């Protein structure tokens, strides 16, 4: 029996091959699709509408509810998904469980951090900004040496959403009688005013978003002092030509009194699609890939996934320091999640207030 798994992670077939070696009767064949909103989801929706589609697919956490709307996902709790719940970070697990069912297995998450270049910041005698106010002040000074503190993507709204969530916003919540919306609370408006002013003062450029050709060219010529993005961005920052050894990582700036120490950007799940004929086996593969040491190490080595969804297991490769950014990446990224002053229960649904963050 073969399972098909659609994903945009780099050579994820190598991860599947490890499973295939030890499971002769359940072979997994991966197919590459473009990343989610760049065409990947369109392919999945089209395949579902055509009555076909793969057994397993990479679906970002923010898109799980959309697939549920076209009942494209299998409720995995019927196949015993709950027994694995304790392996995963409760905040991430709550993001895949809706109205009593479990609709995906967390694969990775994107706790945010600030990647910065000390040499560029040194031009104005600054270090990684701890608060957004400081970020704006340093940004202002950097303009005098013809550098930017960061860029702001007009096309990709997920950055703005993460900053608003960090400030304590909660745009939508499910209630018994339907959805309740509140996008005009004061934390969202504070973030909106902040970036309005940042753009009006010319602190950030909106010509292009992160990881676009224009951004790579500007970053390689030292025009950017920092980039606040998900932890998965470390692989992309490494591909900035001429950037080896110059990038460091620090906790992302925080909003003054309210809000959280960090936020999330991206984060995927492995979900079983509605037309799959082998949901039970698909669930077993998904759990193996995302919560066993072998699976996680393979994912990190081959596919550069984001942060591991399993608290105690951040993956062997990430325990030793990475030489790219002067040996400090891993230790700082994990520490920055614990710095959050208020209990960060993550971009998740209602979940018990756990003492340790995650």
């Amino acid at each position, binding site marked *: 029996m073969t399972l098909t798994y659609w994903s945009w992670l780099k050579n994820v077939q190598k991860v599947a091959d490890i499973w295939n070696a030890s499971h002769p009767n359940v072979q997994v064949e991966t197919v590459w699709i473009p990343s989610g909103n760049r065409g990947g989801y369109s392919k999945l929706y089209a395949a579902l509408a055509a009555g076909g589609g793969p057994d397993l697919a990479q679906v970002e956490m*923010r*898109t799980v509810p959309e697939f549920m*709307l076209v009942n494209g996902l299998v409720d995995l709790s019927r196949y015993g998904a709950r027994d694995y719940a304790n392996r995963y970070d409760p905040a991430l697990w709550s993001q895949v469980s809706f109205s009593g069912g479990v609709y995906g297995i967390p694969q990775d998450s994107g706790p945010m951090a600030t990647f910065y270049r000390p040499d560029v910041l040194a031009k104005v005698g600054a270090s990684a900004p701890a608060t957004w106010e400081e970020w704006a002040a340093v940004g202002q000074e950097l303009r005098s040496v013809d550098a930017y503190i960061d860029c702001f993507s007009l096309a990709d709204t997920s950055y703005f959403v993460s900053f608003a969530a960090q400030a304590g916003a*909660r745009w939508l919540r499910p209630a018994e009688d339907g*959805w309740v*919306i509140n*996008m005009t609370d004061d934390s969202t408006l504070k973030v909106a005013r902040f970036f309005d002013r940042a753009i009006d003062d010319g602190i950030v450029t909106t010509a292009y978003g992160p990881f676009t050709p224009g951004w790579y060219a500007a970053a390689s010529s030292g025009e950017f002092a920092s980039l606040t993005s998900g932890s998965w961005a470390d692989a992309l920052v490494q591909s900035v030509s001429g950037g080896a050894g110059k990038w460091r990582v620090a906790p992302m700036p925080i909003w003054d009194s309210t809000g959280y120490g960090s936020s999330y950007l991206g984060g995927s799940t492995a979900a079983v699609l509605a037309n799959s004929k082998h949901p039970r086996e698909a669930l077993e593969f998904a759990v193996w890939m995302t919560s066993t040491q072998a699976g996680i190490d393979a994912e990190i080595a081959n596919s550069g996934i984001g942060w591991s969804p399993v608290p105690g297991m951040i993956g062997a490769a990430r325990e030793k320091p990475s030489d790219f950014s002067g040996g400090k990446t891993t230790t700082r990224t994990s520490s920055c999640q614990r710095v959050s002053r208020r209990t960060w229960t993550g971009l*998740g*649904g209602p979940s018990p207030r756990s003492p340790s963050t995650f």
Partner: protein
Amino acid sequence: MDWSWWPVTTQSFNILSDGFRRKASGTSFVDTVVAAEQQIMTAFRNKGLTIRKEQA
């Protein structure tokens, strides 16, 4: 207090980014967020889902 996603995220993101794109022609982010809230509620209702504004 925590965050939860909703069944119309892609369309909501596009509504917001269309609003952000009008920044150059004078629409501030604050106006965009306020207008987006209404458009997202319409998007919910177009899908046949029920939605209401949070009472303060």
